[in-house]
């Protein structure tokens, strides 16, 4: 087989044309006859007992079909980790924006007006907004009786306002402190970041006359949605059909149910299709944004720059409900040492309830916060030891055969090569230092998610191939990559392959699109399914060609005998033969549970996730200029190097990296969901500032390929690391430029200016 013809070649997206031409159907595009529109009533208080709800006035409004409050909905608590979330807040509201009631009406405006007419009597409770305060004695308890909650994930450590805690330790930290020549301590804090997808959450649900639920939703994980719905609706999963629409951006914010259950319940109640589409301000006050985090780091080093020991404490503010918080805290714990050899360490990472909205997954969860802290801290140590930040890192880099904090034996460690490569493209060693300009460096090591993927490859009657999967392509280009992989395996031009992302009825199971897992794990599933199909084809062809199956090969859409090439049959002929005379319709299938080395659980406590099957690596150099009078930071150049294991589609790889860097740039410089008490003060895209196209600096990208043993052709994901890098790289560059270290994001002009002023005052 002519290997490597398709893998590694730039390939245009399979979904590009339909998106560019406007015929892709997104969540908000779904319309149905007789469809009702839904709205929810949000709690106006961050922490309040709900004394009485009166819907009478609202129900009288013409056009209102039904109103559900906590007493009208299933009395179940759901949750991805901790089952702590009621369908609608009943006894008390735990954040401002929490749904208390849902209305279905003939028009969206009517539903909205009705929601406003619902009279609720509240009794305000003392709120807590700061995760550090929430841990203190006498802090209001956000979930009374939390001990009684069931957990979806085993082994969670929970108490008080803590809903998850990961503890990792290794070596002997006490001995480490004694052996250290110098000790550095820092405190970092990071803001809440909104995903900023263009397409809002939009869901349409209906029940058919057999009582089967069908639901259209813009989601990254159809099967996860189905499972949560099954639990809430009390339906067996085979009576629920979740149809993923095209997704206009997910970034982790569409992995869990948001309003799917509301639509389903209202549809069941009214017998009509019900649609709910969130506004930007609802998304920004109700759905899962990136956790804000406070991180304490303490590191002991030798004078020569060898790291000896580190103590880390991470506090993830997870808001009113746990969401993925316990898992995000675990990812933070796993990332906080960075790709550096650390003989002794003690890591404590907590997910803490506060009276804010529920934070959950966003691209690079846990790692983005930990990455900023770890890499800023590393930079500070290098400076104070008078070492070049690059040399300091190289001195401490891990390599193959080292053990991770979690006790995994590291393989295919790509950071060394990536670092060399970024130093080369940025000309690090010869970098010019001019006034008020500076250079910053940053590395990352992150984890990807494995779990289960399955694929179905069908040979049609005409010999064409059809790949059916349940992994949503939310814009990151997975369907394109999977077409390439199938094309490679079947030796067929990739544009002749059709990829269908099916729904939960038609597609085989997949865990979901997140954690850099689709190319990695579904890629393997596609390879397996192709191989399964080939076995069937070869066995059919063996009979028709009267050659032993082991002798057969698939080349250029022909199956032929290796020893006797004129004995050949085309896929078309073979398909016809199979369908009508021999064996039936050929159909390759596979299911792959990603292999992984278990964590060393004697060192790791409370981590709710299965161990990662592979790590990801990247590093970045940034050049900035700083206006000393205004504090304005301009990012002049970004050089970024990413280890892809094996690049499958260079176009898609670069797209992912560019997009991720812009998201990281926004996080570094502008983006922050601002809270005043429990209230979001900027829930719109004018006041919440994401980068514009004009804010994109020059970005140079290099890709290295350190083949990952478990990945398809050695590939690993590249989606998350780009977001982990810019914040620390820019903060480090600012320090290089003007000598101030800022430990709090975003790096706004105001923060920079006042840091400069403080620095000047201290010098005096």
């Amino acid at each position, binding site marked *: 087989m002519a290997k490597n013809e398709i893998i590694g070649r730039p390939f245009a997206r399979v979904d590009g044309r339909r998106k560019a031409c406007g015929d892709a159907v997104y969540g908000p595009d779904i319309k149905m006859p007789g469809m009702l529109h839904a709205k929810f009533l949000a709690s106006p208080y961050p922490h309040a007992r709900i004394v009485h709800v009166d819907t009478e006035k609202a129900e009288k409004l013409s056009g209102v079909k039904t109103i559900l409050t906590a007493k009208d909905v299933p009395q179940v608590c759901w949750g991805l980790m901790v089952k702590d979330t009621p369908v609608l807040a009943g006894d008390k509201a735990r954040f401002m924006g929490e749904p208390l009631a849902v209305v279905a009406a003939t028009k969206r405006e009517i539903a909205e007006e009705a929601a406003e007419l619902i009279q609720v009597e509240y009794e305000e409770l003392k709120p807590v907004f700061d995760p550090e305060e929430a841990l203190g004695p006498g802090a209001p308890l956000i979930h009374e009786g939390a001990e009684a909650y069931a957990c979806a994930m085993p082994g969670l450590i929970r108490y008080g306002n803590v809903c998850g805690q990961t503890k990792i330790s290794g070596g002997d930290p006490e001995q480490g402190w004694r052996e250290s020549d110098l000790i550095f301590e820092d405190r970092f804090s990071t803001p809440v970041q909104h995903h900023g997808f263009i397409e809002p959450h939009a869901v349409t649900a209906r029940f058919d006359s057999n009582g089967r639920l069908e639901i259209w939703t813009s989601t990254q994980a159809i099967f996860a949605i189905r499972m949560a719905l099954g639990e809430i609706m009390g339906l067996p999963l085979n009576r629920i059909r979740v149809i993923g629409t095209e997704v206009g951006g997910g970034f982790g914010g569409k992995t869990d149910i948001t309003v799917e259950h509301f639509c389903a319940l209202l549809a069941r109640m009214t017998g009509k299709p019900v649609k709910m589409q969130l506004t930007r301000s609802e998304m920004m006050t109700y759905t899962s944004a990136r956790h804000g985090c406070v991180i304490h780091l303490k590191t002991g080093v030798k004078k020569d720059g060898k790291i000896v020991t580190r103590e880390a404490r991470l506090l993830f503010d997870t808001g009113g409900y746990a969401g993925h918080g316990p898992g995000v805290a675990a990812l933070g714990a796993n990332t906080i040492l960075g790709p550096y050899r650390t003989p002794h360490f003690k890591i404590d990472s907590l997910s803490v309830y506060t009276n804010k909205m529920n934070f959950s997954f966003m691209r690079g969860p846990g790692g983005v916060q930990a990455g900023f802290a770890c890499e800023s801290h590393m930079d500070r140590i290098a400076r104070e030891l008078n070492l070049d930040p690059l040399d300091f890192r190289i001195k401490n880099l891990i390599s193959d055969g080292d053990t991770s904090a979690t006790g995994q034996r590291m393989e295919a460690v790509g950071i060394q090569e990536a670092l060399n490569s970024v130093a080369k493209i940025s000309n690090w060693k010869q970098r010019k230092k001019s006034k008020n300009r500076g250079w910053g460096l940053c590395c990352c090591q992150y984890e990807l998610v494995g779990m289960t993927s399955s694929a179905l490859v069908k040979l049609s009657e005409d010999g064409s191939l059809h790949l059916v999967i349940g992994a949503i392509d939310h814009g990151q280009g997975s369907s394109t990559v999977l077409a390439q992989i199938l094309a490679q395996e079947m030796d067929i031009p990739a544009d002749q392959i059709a990829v269908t992302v099916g729904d939960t009825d038609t597609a085989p199971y997949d865990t979901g699109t997140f954690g850099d897992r689709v190319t990695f794990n579904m890629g393997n599933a596609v390879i397996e399914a192709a191989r399964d199909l080939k076995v069937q084809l070869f066995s059919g062809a063996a009979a028709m060609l009267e050659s032993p199956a082991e002798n057969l090969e698939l080349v250029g859409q022909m199956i032929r005998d290796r020893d006797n090439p004129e004995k050949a049959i085309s896929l078309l002929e073979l398909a016809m033969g199979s369908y009508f005379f021999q064996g039936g319709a050929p159909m390759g299938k596979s299911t792959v549970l990603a292999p992984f080395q278990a964590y060393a659980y004697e060192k790791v406590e409370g981590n709710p996730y299965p161990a990662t099957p592979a790590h990801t690596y990247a590093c970045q150099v940034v050049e900035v200029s700083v206006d000393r009078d205004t504090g*304005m930071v301009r990012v002049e150049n970004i050089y970024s190097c990413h280890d892809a294991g094996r690049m499958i589609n260079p176009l898609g790889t670069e797209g992912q990296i560019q997009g991720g860097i812009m998201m990281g740039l926004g996080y570094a410089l*502008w983006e922050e969901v601002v809270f005043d008490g429990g209230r979001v003060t900027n829930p719109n895209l004018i006041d919440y500032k994401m980068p*514009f196209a004009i804010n994109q600096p020059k970005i140079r990208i290099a890709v290295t390929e350190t083949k990952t043993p478990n990945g398809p052709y050695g590939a690993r994901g590249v989606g998350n690391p780009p977001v982990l890098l810019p914040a620390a790289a820019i903060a480090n560059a600012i320090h290089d430029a003007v000598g101030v270290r800022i430990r709090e994001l975003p790096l706004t002009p105001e923060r920079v200016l006042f840091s400069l002023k403080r620095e000047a005052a201290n010098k005096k």
Partner: protein
Amino acid sequence: MKDMRYIRAASVTEVTDCLKKYGDKAKILAGGQSLVPLLRQRLARPGLLIDISRVADLKFIRKTKNTLKIGALTTHRQLETDPLIREHLPILADMEKQLASVQIRNLGTLGGNLCHADPAGDVAPALMALGAKLKLISATGARTMSVENFFKDFFETAIRPDEVLAEIDIPLLPDLGHAIYIKHSSRGVDTAIIGVGTFILKDHDTDTCKEIRLCVGAVGPVPIRAKNAEAVIRGKVVTGKTIAEAGKKAREEISPVSDLQGSAEYKKELIEVFIQRALKAASSGRRK
């Protein structure tokens, strides 16, 4: 929005007649860039929407002997690209380049921007620096008012409910007169954290400053003139020293309010920096 009526006016008279009849129950709709979001949120609930976007009489840019006259319906984009503006009042084209995005500039109008009276608006400080006048028309007649007197409070102007803003009348720059607008915003084209419109006229023989206006936006409920800073410069040769002093004075005389773009303390710092920058640029004769 169910109780709201909508009419599309064809002429200024039709607009003023409607306003006379409905008074403050009616709201004028121009480019809709500021009003429509408020309507959608039902924060504004007018009984009648008078769409003036087709009133041809309000769309023009004309040069007279001493002034440029600009119709209130002129869009930001027209102002940015018009050859007459570029030739005679390049400050306005420069200002527009820093205002929102092209999409918004294509629709938003000068009149709408002024009447919306966002305290962080860019148009007002620039026009104030130029000494522009506004022509307001009602069914009973017309009156003119300087831009400086037009703004009353956050989003409040001196316009009466029965009036429409028809025209902006801007004196042409005298020889040796320079006007510039500079702005600071976090992403380059954002709502201003601070905006400064500056006009300086120097004496031909002595090089002293004959006339000066320093107009600062986004630091209070309305754009403010930094009069004490002006006094430092007026009648003197502009030097590094006077510029520094003017910056200090401006910082003392203005007490900014915090908003989401920046805290009062930060704005205070910026007032000094931007007054200095504005003076430097305007007095060096550069128009930008």
